[in-house]
């Protein structure tokens, strides 16, 4: 029986690779970013603008109650109506965007800052260290994410910081995996070997040679991670475990409006639509950028 170890492509860079694979066109998407990119990007900019400048763009106080106008339908005074405490839904949606965006951006950053070095170290050094890290990641992954979030938020209380950090922790395995895979794929490449032959140390190779290459696929995943961070935050606040009252958050608003789904669907539906559009936009923008800048397979995720 033939030995598989000898069955490798022999002179791999000689025309072994068919052009048909090497020159895969960026499946149809032409060189320009289409409106499937600009439209969502516009939405994101709008949301971000509103969230940042919420106190100054003339929207109402999101917390003040109005016992007269409970659950009023959208009207001139309240463009998106009021909720069951008579609060302006539009104002709450906009202030809720602050939570979603902060968590959405910061959690992946936390995950990346921790996951990237972990993954790179595992991929670079291999052996015991790799085994240990992969094992820890496995352990971490074996505990359902929502359970961890629940436990964290119960232990440390619900606050923006806790939610962001604990969600960020959940992203560690994902980022670690991506950067580990990327590191592995570059690790055996000849430019790393070349760096070794000139006597570069491990740290130098990790930071100077590997990092610039690893960071791109990792960043490319970043925007998609933002989308999922927003979704998970939504789920958390749906369970009432995210930011404390009275701060509005989309998931919390959806959960709060559930009881009034039949008489006043607008209480849930508007935040749901805004959240949907925002998540969709991040997904679309993220995907466009990812397919443009890196070829990471979803399988790694």
């Amino acid at each position, binding site marked *: 029986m033939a030995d598989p170890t000898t069955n490798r492509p022999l002179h791999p860079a000689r025309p072994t690779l068919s052009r048909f694979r090497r020159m895969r066109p960026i499946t149809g998407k032409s060189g320009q970013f289409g409106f499937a990119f600009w439209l969502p990007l516009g939405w994101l900019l709008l949301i971000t603008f509103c969230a940042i400048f919420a106190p100054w763009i003339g929207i109402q106080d999101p917390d003040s109650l109005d*016992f007269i106008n409970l659950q009023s339908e959208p009207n001139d005074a309240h463009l998106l109506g009021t909720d069951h405490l008579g609060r302006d839904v539009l104002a709450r949606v906009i202030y809720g965007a602050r939570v979603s965006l902060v968590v959405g951006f910061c959690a992946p950053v936390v995950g990346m800052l921790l996951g990237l070095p972990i993954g790179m170290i595992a991929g670079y050094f291999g052996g015991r260290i790799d085994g240990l890290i992969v094992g820890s990641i496995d352990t971490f992954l074996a505990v359902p994410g929502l359970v961890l979030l629940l436990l964290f938020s*119960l232990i440390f209380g*619900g606050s923006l910081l806790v939610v962001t950090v604990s969600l960020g922790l959940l992203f560690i395995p994902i980022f670690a995996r991506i950067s580990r895979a990327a590191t592995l794929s570059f690790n055996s490449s000849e430019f790393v070997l070349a760096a070794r032959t000139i006597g570069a140390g491990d740290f130098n190779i990790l930071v100077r040679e590997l990092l610039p290459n690893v960071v791109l696929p990792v960043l490319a995943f970043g925007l998609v991670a933002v989308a999922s961070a927003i979704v998970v935050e939504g789920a958390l606040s749906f369970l009432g475990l995210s930011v404390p009252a009275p701060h509005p958050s989309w998931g919390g608003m959806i959960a709060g409006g559930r009881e009034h789904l039949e008489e006043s669907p607008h209480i849930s539906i508007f935040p749901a639509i805004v959240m949907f559009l925002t998540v969709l936009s991040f997904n679309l923008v993220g995907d466009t950028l990812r397919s443009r800048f890196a070829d990471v397979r979803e399988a790694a995720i």
Partner: protein
Amino acid sequence: HAGSHSAARDGGTLTVGVETDARGFDAVKGGVLGVSAGTVSLAVHDTLLKYNENTKQFEPNLATSWVAAEDNKSWTIKLRTDVKFHDGTAFTAKDVADHFSRILDPANKSRSRSFITAITGVEALDDHTVRFNLAHPWLPLLGNLAAPSMIGLIPSSANVAADKQNREPIGTGPYVFKNWAGGDRITITKNPNYWKKGAAHVDEIVFRILPDTQARFASLRSGEIDLIWTDRGGSIQDAQKDPKLVTVVRDGKGAVITFINASKPPLDDARVRQAMAHAWNQTAILKVTWKDTRPFAEHPLGTESTCDAGYRHYDPAKAKALLADYGKPVKINMIHTTTPRGREFGEIYQQLLKQVGIELELIPVDQNTLVKKVFTNDYMISGWRIADADDVGPQTFALSYSKSSYNLSRLKSPEMDKAAFAMRTAADPATRKKYHCDLMRMVNDQGNMQYRGGNRYYAFHGTNTHNISIDGLGVVRVSGAWKDQ
């Protein structure tokens, strides 16, 4: 509904949607019986007495007669002789004595003990006679013997001894416990040998655990289940409007309250508490949170009780005046649960206090932590409740008496202690009530407890279901139900 008994039809299955799973049915092990477990238990067990809501009188059930001694410090009760437990053993005075002795034994740490500490002992005089000895004249005894909670329900002492009562309860009731699929459903079946012939009609009652109110309500409307109860204002309003549904209502005693911790500055100043009482708009929260499906509470003695408790009504001007008198800015915090209702309560309270110039910070915690914080005096303001009871006196006593470990608002005053003691040992209902009312007036004046609404219970069922009633504590009596078809 009572009138339609003649048309009662036997057979069929009654499906009941309940909000929470039971924890267990053992009076000692299971802790509090929630409404779910209470409802199941009430169908599986019998009480000694029964309270008639219409006549306001106690009626015989497992007991045939009851007489007090001259000094009112003991009661002798005669029991039925024809009653058998579901396992076939005969019901005797020993079962009753064992049950109460077990609750009273401090080693068992029953949480129900605190309600009946006035009982010093229970003895079986013969097979069917039992005597309750009391420390002092104690009016609430009969109410406790009729309580549809674990205190009043008599289990098989053999089953208790075998340590199976918690998960497979055995009683003398019209229904026999059949199966408990954790998290999903509890099934009980008709007791063919029930001592009161014709009391039970449907063959089987299934309690389905459906935690989501919306879902439970939708299932009721689609006819998937026959009966639900809820305390959600929106659903109650919808149900009352729905011609295909029948509403069963009963007012209860007790109340949903707010503790103002009198041991934490600046809440140790009565003026601050009083200002908060005037800033508190109970009408508004009843409207917003409960959609006016609960009664306005001035005290926890129940809507039927005529007691002028000197309630401090919503009056922001007065509140501001009191604060001005106090003179310092008030910044306080409050713990609340992470449930939508808990958040909402916090959000409303925050806004109401803001109107009179008090800054309130909200700290979300889960239910369990909230309880712990309140017990360990690690809070300033927290929601709480005075549980329903035929007589809430024992609770108001414990909440107000200075040496009670249950004085959770930590307000200690000799006058209140005096009123509490007088209430506790009163030998006749009128005196007891007078002292009770006095006590509640003092509480209202101090502002250490504020009301968020009284208790009113609702159950709903389709028009083809009959003979459902709500007992004390909101426990639903399903054992007499029958269905058309």
